C-alpha cells in the first residue's frame, strides 16, 4: 500500500514530529508509515484522514492505483 503522507505533510510544512503529535503516535510510527514500512491500522488511518481533512482513499492507495 502506498500513501501520500509525505506530500500532504510537506504541503502543510509540518515536521514528522508535529504530525506525530497531531496523531498521538511516535515520530517513528509516522516515519514508518510514510516510508511504507508499516501499514497503519484502520483507526490510525481514520485519524490521519481526520487530521488532513481528507478521505482515507485520498491518502492511502492500492499499489496499482493512481492518486486522485
Amino acid at each position, binding site marked *: 500500500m502506498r500513501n501520500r503522507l509525505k506530500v500532504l505533510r510537506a504541503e502543510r510544512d509540518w515536521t514528522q514530529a508535529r504530525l*506525530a503529535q497531531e496523531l498521538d*503516535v*511516535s515520530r*517513528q*510510527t509516522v516515519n514508518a508509515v510514510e516510508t511504507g514500512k*508499516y501499514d497503519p491500522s484502520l483507526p490510525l488511518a*481514520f485519524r490521519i484522514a481526520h487530521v488532513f481533512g481528507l*478521505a482515507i482513499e485520498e491518502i492511502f492507495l492500492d499499489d496499482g492505483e493512481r492518486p486522485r
Partner: protein
Amino acid sequence: MSKTLLAAPSEPCEAPGRSRRRELLLAGITLLWALVFVGATRLIKSELLSPGALPWLVAAAPCVAAVFVLVAYMRFLREADELQRLIQLQALALGFGGGFFTICGYSLFERVGAPPAGVELATVMPVLYALGVLLGERRYR
C-alpha cells in the same frame, strides 16, 4: 468512502511522551530487579544467612521485584502506540520462542554429556527479546 466517515470518532489516543516515560521506568525497574536477583543469589550462595526465615525472605525479594517489572511492562504496553506494540510482539515471539526451544534443545545435549545448564540458560529469553526489540527498532526506524 463517504466524507461523513471523516467525522468518525478516533480510537483512544496513545501518548508517545508518556509511553517513553513508561519505557524508561520499565528499564529502571528491570535493572533494579536484576540487582536484587544477583544480590539475593550471592547472599544465598555465601551461606552468610543463618537458617530461619531470613533466607526465605531474601529468596522472595526478587519475586516481589518481578511483580513491579510485570506491572511496569503491562502499563508500558497499554500506552505504547500500535507500531511499538508490533515491535514488542515480534520481540516477545523471538524471546519466548527462542528461549523455549533453546531450553528444550539443550536438555537433550545434557543427556548426551554437555555440562548441566543452570538458571543461566533462561537468560537466553531476555537476550533474544532485547535482540528482537533492536531488530524491530532498526526495521521501522
